[in-house]
């Protein structure tokens, strides 16, 4: 057998070997005649450090030898586990996707209508411009800020269609990395898990500001203000516009004013993630109040939007990145750079979801109908909160204050259950939720509230 000598690190002197065709398709390490200069064990760990292994023999050995299995996503992995459970009473309160009272997914009527209109019109499927569908961009910024907002008239908003909330946030992160090197993003503790991934992968440093107070199961407002004040001037402060994910705890209007004050004092940049406009209170305008407050003060603001929940367009990946600037000229420059970042990510965004939104928002009849459907969805969540609260209150005699269930808003509720207690929810009661104690009320029906109440009371009192 010809010995297989592999030389390392010398690009110009690769050993020339004859090919061994018989080893087609199989990884081949040869025998002891293989020699590697430094590493024992897995020879291909040295590929990563030197990249210079002569692979004459080893064509079929994969580059991916050393690649480990990634951990399951903490949120999306919950649904996977739920699906695998065969128990009848199981309940999925994991991912934030709206369910009807029958716990079925829901396609909004206005969406079906819009799609039929689109089908009838037989529109083409040409590339959108990099910044997305113009009709969508117009509709989305008007929805966010109000159609007669002066900043729109003054053309001070750079709006770019993005891949739902995630993609829009990622674009902004890339902008920050490129134009504000070293600037930090302050994120709430806790926040949506993927926020950290986004800033990590975009190489933007982040730190946390206090937000959730486990003692009150409410907002640690003083801690929040303190931490925002303590951050280096010119930091980006990531704020949830409404229906904070995962806690469901929102600042009051008075608290929003104070938050704006301290952000202005410290020359920070407010960065809103608006994933639930309309879904929190049931009113589109009310849910945008925080963003509008900041804009009305003349601040420059970043705002990421998503239509995953409020139009049920989850899988269409439709959202937007908005940058409210001090001048139309600044807005134009910012928009051009957002486009430059998007081009090497995906060239231009997907058209289908954008068209749906533009059709729904652009047609007065459909728009009204949408508002009604959203009130219905938000209403169902509120009813479920009430029923859950009533059930727990009547069953639990310990005197614990459960009113946070009613005070929190939106799809999620931070129950205050710790990891062990959350595990108990799953292992004993087949209630699937995330380990941080978050439940998605969108996955809860009135019919299951009693059962859930029992599960929560048991987990809270009997498990530590």
């Amino acid at each position, binding site marked *: 057998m010809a010995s297989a000598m592999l030389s390392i690190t010398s690009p110009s002197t690769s050993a020339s070997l004859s090919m061994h065709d018989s080893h087609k398709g199989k990884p081949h390490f040869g025998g002891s005649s293989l020699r590697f200069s430094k590493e024992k064990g897995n020879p291909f760990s040295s590929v*990563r450090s030197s990249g210079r292994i002569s692979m004459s023999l080893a064509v079929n050995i994969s580059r991916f030898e050393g690649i480990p299995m990634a951990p399951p996503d903490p949120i999306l992995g919950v649904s996977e586990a739920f699906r695998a459970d065969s128990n009848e009473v199981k309940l999925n309160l994991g991912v934030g996707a709206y369910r009807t009272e029958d716990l079925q997914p829901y396609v909004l009527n206005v969406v079906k209508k819009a799609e039929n209109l689109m089908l009838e019109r037989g529109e083409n499927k040409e590339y959108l411009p990099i910044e997305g569908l113009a009709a969508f961009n117009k509709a989305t910024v008007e929805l966010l800020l109000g159609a007669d907002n002066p900043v729109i008239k003054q053309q001070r908003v750079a709006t770019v269609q993005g891949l739902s909330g995630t993609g829009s946030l990622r674009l902004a992160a890339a902008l920050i990395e490129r134009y504000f090197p070293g600037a930090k993003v302050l994120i709430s503790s806790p926040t949506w898990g993927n926020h950290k991934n986004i800033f990590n992968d975009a190489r933007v440093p982040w730190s946390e500001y206090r937000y959730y107070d486990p003692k009150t199961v409410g907002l640690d407002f003083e801690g929040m203000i303190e931490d925002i004040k303590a951050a280096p001037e010119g930091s980006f402060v990531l704020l949830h516009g409404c229906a904070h994910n995962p806690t469901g705890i929102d600042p009051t209007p008075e608290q929003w004013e104070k938050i704006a004050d301290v952000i202005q004092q410290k020359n920070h940049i407010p960065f809103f993630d608006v994933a639930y406009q309309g879904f929190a209170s049931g009113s589109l305008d009310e849910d945008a109040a925080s963003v509008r407050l900041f804009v009305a003060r003349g601040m420059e603001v970043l705002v990421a939007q998503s239509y995953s929940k409020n139009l049920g367009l989850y*899988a*269409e990946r439709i959202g937007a990145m908005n940058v409210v600037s001090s001048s139309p000229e600044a807005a134009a420059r910012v928009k051009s750079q957002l486009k430059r970042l998007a081009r090497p990510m995906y060239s231009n965004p997907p058209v289908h979801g954008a068209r749906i939104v533009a059709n729904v928002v652009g047609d007065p009849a459909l728009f009204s109908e949408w508002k009604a459907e959203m009130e219905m969805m938000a209403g169902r969540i509120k009813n479920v909160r009430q029923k859950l609260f009533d059930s727990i209150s009547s069953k639990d005699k310990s005197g614990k204050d459960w009113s946070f269930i009613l005070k929190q808003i939106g799809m999620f509720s931070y129950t205050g259950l710790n990891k062990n207690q959350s595990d108990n929810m799953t292992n004993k009661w087949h209630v699937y939720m995330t380990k941080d104690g978050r439940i998605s009320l969108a996955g809860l029906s009135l019919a299951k509230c009693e059962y859930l109440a029992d599960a929560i009371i048991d987990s809270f009192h009997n498990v530590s």
Partner: protein
Amino acid sequence: MPIHSVASSRIVGRSSVIGARFMSSWWRSIEPAPKDPILGVTEAFLADQSPNKVNVGVGAYRDDNGRPVVLDCVREAERRIAGNEYMEYLPMGGSIKMVEESLKLAYGENSEFIKDNRIAAVQALSGTGACRLFAAFQQRFYPGSKIYLPIPTWSNHHNIWRDAGVPMKTFRYYHPETRGLDFAGLMDEIKSAPNGSFFLLHACAHNPTGVDPSEEQWREISSQFKLKGHFPFFDMAYQGFASGSTERDAKAIKIFLDDGHLVGLAQSYAKNMGLYGQRVGCLSLVCEDEKQAVSVKSQLQLLARPMYSSPPVHGARIVSTVLGDPELKKLWLKEVKVMADRIIGMRATLRECLEKRGSALSWQHITNQIGMFCYTGLTPEQVDRLTSEFHIYMTRNGRISMAGLNTGNVEYVADAIHEVTKSA
């Protein structure tokens, strides 16, 4: 108390006055970005009022009337899926069905790699997204490695690997004198690159030149790759669209697979299924075994999650409906061939027109090249003249999109090209 002020003022630097008097923008340092060289052409075209204007810039197919086309198989697929299905999030790896069908299309229905579950594959945001995901993957698991890009290549390839943080080197590819392949130069570069380098190869219908290696040349390239242990990453944006046959257009990949290479592949349905704006494609990496494929796929998903969480469903549903139904798939193959044939016909016509006008230059390359694009050999100055004098829009590297030509405008374009080149 905060002072409210909406008007901006051009105060240098950031004021730190408490009370936030509204000052100059945060975005002062942000310069206007240059127009994208390709997509900017269409913008300019749209702004032109001339009745004679011709857009041979971006590579989007047009029929003989110059109109965009939605394939019949696609319309039918949309009818079937409209309003029927929920829009719940796809898994991070995208539509499983669409990915399955894509692998069959690229690797062959009876591919052993598919049977053995050895391919790590995820749905991607068309070709761009597939390339970007791979570039990010390369950066994470082979930090310090470079990507070798052909000269020339689609300009966005440079942007993609750069923004992913992977340094780039180039290799000789196009031979300007012959307007063909610089095969000797290409082989030279493959040999002299450090062993184990990552190369980007266009599987068929090279963009922007339209110059592809012959089958024999592909075999030699593959052998040399083996000797050097290079990693072949194929960008296949035109399967079916180049020759009219999906099998033939994937031949290069098959040659490499038969040789034992573990390839990487970016697929796009933008052109061959006309799904441009839907952003649907697939990234696949052939692994040693199933276990490894599962690991690699999990890591691709981990990269996708902070980019866009999960890919868009609509285009993927169209693809899986079309490819999953034998009748629709047959119809699709027919429609792709129609598109490819029209392009091939236009190449012949353009060349004929130029030769008829007595051009002294050789225009053989127009019919030698394949796919949507033709590298005319025009200089940037000549291109500028075509635009300013004749309202013909193309990229400054001399690339024309044959899809923008039709029986209605091909003579006009031939005249114009002859006009700007006759003194060359």
